[in-house]
């Protein structure tokens, strides 16, 4: 039904994706839908996300709104199909140097202010880095979010803020979300559907 509300949008389709000897995996995320993904450590959750973001060589098809990955240039694809890795990396001294614009509309929800742009990266806590990394990737206004444990180093309050923000973002923009979480309660809260990953397949199930 969601597709009818958003003409031209079809979400993310993954068909027989194989990467580094794993797979084939197939899944579909409708626009505005959030799928939680769980799996034992080493089951290849991060590898699956990397392959979808086209960071690793892979076989099989990944389509965004029916258009194959290969039809996009790789940088275009990654701006649309955004991967937020478990650990973020920063290469300039100031926070603001990593953002394209002067302002970031998501700072307030995440507990930051305009002043944050001038903070030194070296003095950020791991929790601040994780939230800023989310704000940074949202600046590309992606249509798909691949989130690798986005609240792993956050306290309950900040984790709730991140959950709220991602919820709002996908409602406002119709973004499709694939959310890796170890926390079954979080998976139940944020996910419309729930997938379990093994090295060979994806199984639909309880959170």
């Amino acid at each position, binding site marked *: 039904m969601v597709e009818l509300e958003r003409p031209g949008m079809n979400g993310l389709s993954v068909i027989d994706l194989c990467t580094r000897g794993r797979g084939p995996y197939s899944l579909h995320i409708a626009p505005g839908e959030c799928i939680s993904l769980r799996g034992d450590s080493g089951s290849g959750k991060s590898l699956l996300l990397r392959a979808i973001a*086209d960071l690793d*060589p892979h076989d099989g098809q990944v389509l965004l709104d029916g258009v194959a990955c290969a039809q996009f*240039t*790789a940088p275009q694809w*990654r*701006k649309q199909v955004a991967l937020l890795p478990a650990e973020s*990396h*920063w*290469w300039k001294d100031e926070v603001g140097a990593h953002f394209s614009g002067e302002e970031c509309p998501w700072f307030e929800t995440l507990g930051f202010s305009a002043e944050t742009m001038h903070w030194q990266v070296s003095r950020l806590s791991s929790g601040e880095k994780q939230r800023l990394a989310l704000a940074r990737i949202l600046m*590309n206004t992606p249509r798909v979010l691949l989130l690798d444990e986005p609240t792993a180093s956050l306290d309950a309050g900040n984790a709730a803020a991140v959950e709220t923000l991602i919820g709002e973002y996908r409602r406002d923009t119709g973004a499709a979300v694939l959310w890796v979480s170890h926390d079954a309660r979080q998976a139940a809260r944020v996910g419309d559907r729930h997938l379990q990953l093994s090295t060979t397949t994806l199984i639909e199930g309880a959170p």
Partner: protein
Amino acid sequence: MITLNALDLALAAGLVLTMAALSWRMQLGLSGQLLIAGMRTVVQLLLIGLVLKALFANVDLLWVAGISLVMLLAAGREVMARQQRRFTGWWGFGMGTGAMFISSFAITVLALTTMVATDPWYDPQYAVPLLGMLLGNTMSGIALALDRLTSTAWQQRAVIEQRLMLGATRLQAIAEIRRDAMRSGMMPIINAMAAAGLVSLPGMMTGQILAGSPPLEAVKYQILIMFLISAGTGFGVTAALWLGSKRLFDERHRLRLDKLTGPRNG
């Protein structure tokens, strides 16, 4: 010009032997290396002396091209040997060698046809030493720059991939690393130009003065050589880094460190 006889060289060799004996007494473990290196100097230089003598006696483009090729391949092997992590397969050798070929040969031919203007332009008395100086310096620059590029890319893979995830192109993702590598490749010749005459008398100029050239003539040659070397190194390093940073990625802008060999042991 004062020619050296065998006794003069034997006296100098005596100094090296004394040093080797001292090292042996002090258990520095250097005497073997020192003696072998000394013997290599004698044999290699005598051989090249004979080759040059034969070459000067028969001025022939084919012979000059032949020895140039040998020099190029030796320099290419040296660039490859100085890499901690080098590109796998043919690229490990071809990248540095190709870049040196483009820059050193083009600059040498340009210098021989226009600035030095020998007749014929491939006169080995000028062509071989000129090419040798250009190759030697370009080789050091390219070896330093490529080593810096690949080892930094290896260390900073997480940052490079983070930038790719944010939608950077491969060129954007490696831009700073490439700039650093360029700087380390160019630093030796920039330093040499800045210090020339103040801290050190460049070797070629010293040689010409010892051979009896008027100092100002030697200085003019040295300036020419310095400029040629800095341009040659610059073009060579640029070409090698362009090839190298392209080769670190594939056509889908993925960082492909599997195209590098593991770290060299020892």
